[in-house]
């Protein structure tokens, strides 16, 4: 598979049910390498479940997830991470009592390119500078603001040296100027050769960044295409806004 | 036929376990406080009954009017003045659990030490309603039947309160989600304190009922805490009928295991069953997946 134009992640007939509730119903899509792929849909439509399935936080009932041609279903989370898939969490998760630097070092020490703690500390500082956190390396993570904790999460994910980065509403809750910086940062990460899948409600970011978008509703994939074509699809509007508003 | 008698005995024993666990489930289910000094209130109830009949020659059932209010008040105070500061400062449930385990272990040691100092470590017992009766073809002592009846009665009352009253609805809401319960105007702290206190009162009541047929001492409390804990975890947190059912399951397995394998291994059989359930269904037998 050639870099830049192949498929890095291929999902086929993926299914996950919780009791009687089917959270993800036999969905399939391909993520092209080197691009930014958007995953959108109303709350509760199953987007985060898809992310949890890819990273083995949940185990799939059926279906397959091929990453660079290798099956990821049945692996454990740490193996997925070492296979070079990294993620952030919808509700930000940092290690509260560790410093910012130590949070990022973890990804370096245990990700796909493990290093010694000393080396990891150096690399962590470089990554922190990249996400705009230079100078805050020695602060304890729980004392930082929400936005800074999101930056730590991103730096930690990058520290694992991923080929595929999964962002779960990483831009949510940012103010307009932070949003602009965030969008630039994501674009830059992609330009450095990391494929990105982002779950996002901020349509401005989806339009600015994504080449392709898949839309989920109630566990189904209801549309896929360029942001412009998908967002003008009546079924998508229906899912987002409800029947009456879409008709009006 | 002997096996059937063993089975019936297991049910009686299990009813007793369910009874002991009901109060703890109220404390852990609603107030989210795992009270490891729970068994000490059981022992308190047993000793009050013992003194009532032996010192003052009254019917031990009357001791409930003393032990239950005292246990209620003590547990209310524990919740208000010892647990509330911990709940306030805990950053997450994990940290709270660790603090609570330590403090209630501490209380357990303190209560047990006081009981040893004042009541000595001797094994105590008394006879009350020990007349044999025929129950479904098995011969049992009346007092055991009384305990089973008490368990069913308490469970029924709890069930009705939880299902049919406003107070019960509030408690159920807190069990499911304390934050959301607070958002709809339920005074979570006050209701939790009441549930915690009521749990303590039930511990005392079960101590009284069980003391009519099993001897006890100042140090037996921890064994009952553990039994109760096993039943609560088996049943699933916040389940009333499930608690009784889990208790009966444990009792029957223990009685049958003791009869078929070896009576010296009952604790081992208990823990074996408990561990098996914990590993197979960590959220309990009677919860929805």
């Amino acid at each position, binding site marked *: 598979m050639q870099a830049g134009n192949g498929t890095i992640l291929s999902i086929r007939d993926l299914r996950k049910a919780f009791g009687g509730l089917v959270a993800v119903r036999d969905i399939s899509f391909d993520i092209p390498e080197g691009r930014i792929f958007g995953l959108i849909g109303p709350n509760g439509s199953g987007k985060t479940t898809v992310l949890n399935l890819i*990273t083995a*936080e949940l185990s799939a009932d059926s279906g397959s997830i091929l990453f660079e041609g290798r099956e990821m279903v049945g692996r*454990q*989370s*740490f193996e997925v*991470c*070492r296979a070079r898939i*990294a993620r952030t*969490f919808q509700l930000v*998760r*940092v*290690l*509260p*009592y*560790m410093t910012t630097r*130590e949070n990022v070092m*973890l*990804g370096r020490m*245990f*990700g*796909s390119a493990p290093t*010694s*703690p000393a080396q990891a500390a150096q690399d962590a500082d470089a990554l922190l500078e990249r996400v705009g956190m230079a100078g805050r390396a020695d602060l304890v993570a729980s004392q930082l603001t929400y936005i800074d904790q999101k930056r730590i999460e991103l730096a*930690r994910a990058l520290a*694992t040296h991923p080929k595929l980065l999964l962002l779960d509403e990483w831009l949510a809750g940012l103010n307009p100027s932070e949003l602009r910086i965030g969008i630039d940062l994501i674009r830059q990460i992609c330009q450095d050769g990391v494929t990105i899948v982002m779950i996002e409600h901020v349509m401005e970011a989806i339009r600015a960044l994504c080449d392709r978008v898949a839309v989920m509703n109630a566990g189904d994939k209801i549309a896929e295409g360029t942001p412009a074509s998908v967002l003008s699809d009546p079924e998508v509007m229906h899912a987002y806004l409800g029947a009456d508003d879409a008709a009006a | 036929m002997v096996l059937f008698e063993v089975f019936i005995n297991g049910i009686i024993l299990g009813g007793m376990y369910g009874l002991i666990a009901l109060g703890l489930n109220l404390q852990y289910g609603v107030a989210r406080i*795992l009270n490891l000094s729970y068994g000490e209130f059981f022992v308190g109830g047993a000793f009050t009954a013992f003194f009532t009949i032996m010192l003052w020659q009254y019917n031990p059932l009357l001791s409930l009017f003393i032990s239950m209010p005292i246990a209620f008040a003590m547990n209310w105070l524990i919740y208000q003045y*010892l647990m509330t500061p911990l709940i306030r400062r805990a950053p997450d449930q*994990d940290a709270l*659990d*660790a603090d609570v*385990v*330590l*403090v209630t*272990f*501490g*209380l*357990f*040691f*303190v*209560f*047990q*030490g*006081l009981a*040893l*100092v004042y009541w000595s470590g001797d094994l105590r017992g008394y006879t009350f309603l020990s007349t044999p009766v025929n129950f479904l073809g098995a011969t049992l002592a009346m007092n055991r039947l009384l305990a089973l009846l008490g368990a069913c009665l308490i469970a029924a009352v709890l069930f009705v309160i939880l299902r049919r009253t406003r107070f019960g609805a509030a408690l159920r809401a807190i069990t499911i989600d304390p934050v959301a319960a607070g958002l709809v105007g339920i005074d979570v702290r006050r209701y939790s304190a009441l549930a915690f206190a009521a749990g303590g009162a039930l511990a005392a009541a079960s101590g009284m009922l069980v003391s009519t047929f099993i001897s006890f001492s100042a140090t037996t409390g921890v064994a009952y805490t*553990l039994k109760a*804990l*096993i039943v609560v*975890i088996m049943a699933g947190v916040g389940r009333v009928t499930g608690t009784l059912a889990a208790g009966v399951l444990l009792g029957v397995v223990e009685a049958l295991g003791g009869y078929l394998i*070896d009576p*010296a*291994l009952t*604790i*081992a059989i208990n*823990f*074996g069953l408990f*561990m098996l359930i*914990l*590993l197979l269904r*960590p959220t309990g037998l009677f919860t929805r997946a």
Partner: protein
Amino acid sequence: MLDALRNARAAAALIVIAAIALAFVPLFSSGYVMSVFILLFANVALATAWSFFSGATRYISLATAAFFGIGIYVLAIAHVYVPVPVALIAAAIIGFLVALVVGLSTLRLRGVYFVVFTFGLTELIHQVLNWWEVKINHTVSRFIFTDVSNIAIYETLLVAALITIVGSWYVNQIRLGYALRAIGEDETVARHAGINTTRVKVVCFALSASVMAFVGAVLALRYPYVDASIAFNSTWSFQVLIAALLGGGGRAWGPAIGAIPLVLLSEYLAGTFPHHFSIALGLCFVVIVYFLPGGLTRLVLRLYHSWLVPQLKKAEVL
């Protein structure tokens, strides 16, 4: 960075001096003083081993008495057939293996469930062993015949305590230490950062258990006989837990400074007021939780930084 290096060197020097001094204690002391020191070293080793796993990962284990008891029994059974040193090593190895099996099946339980499970484990082993002794071996206790001197026991436990502390300090510096702490703070994040959490947990749980079994085996040398109730006494689990929490986490020497006052207090109380020991122990728990949340470690570090360091600086300036 230089400061840290200087601190580490100072700590290492302190430990070496203390170890040499302690090694000569038996030359000058009575049997009673020796036995207090033996108990002290045993508790320091146990609390450090406990904290190495449970303090870092926040999996609060009450299985200390289980592994400790396994050590006692391995020695009691094995010392008849093999030399004592071999029996001691066998105890450590068997403790490790049992913990490996237990860890694989239980370490996915969190919080209160894990606490109760480990407590139950002690009771389970206790009763099964008791049953096995009575029904199969027709005995209730085992005699221990050895001619190991108190001095040898003293020196062995001193070395064991030192190795445990230094080993725990060393692990804190390497990747494994970070992995343990990450598991304690957020296991999900740890997994997604590429840590094989199951392997880390099980191996460290077993390492900690092997120290506990070893200490149990060494202490068993002092007993004339053992039975299941002596070997699997849950008080050990509680005392070790309190020592470790009183000491506080985050530093390898933390549990040790918690164990010292606790052993001295229990030695004093057990002799004078046996029932009051349990009350005092209980009050200790409560005091730790409300007034010393970081343990003595935090107190010592605060004193060190706010008082000793300025004093030293002043002295240099003058």
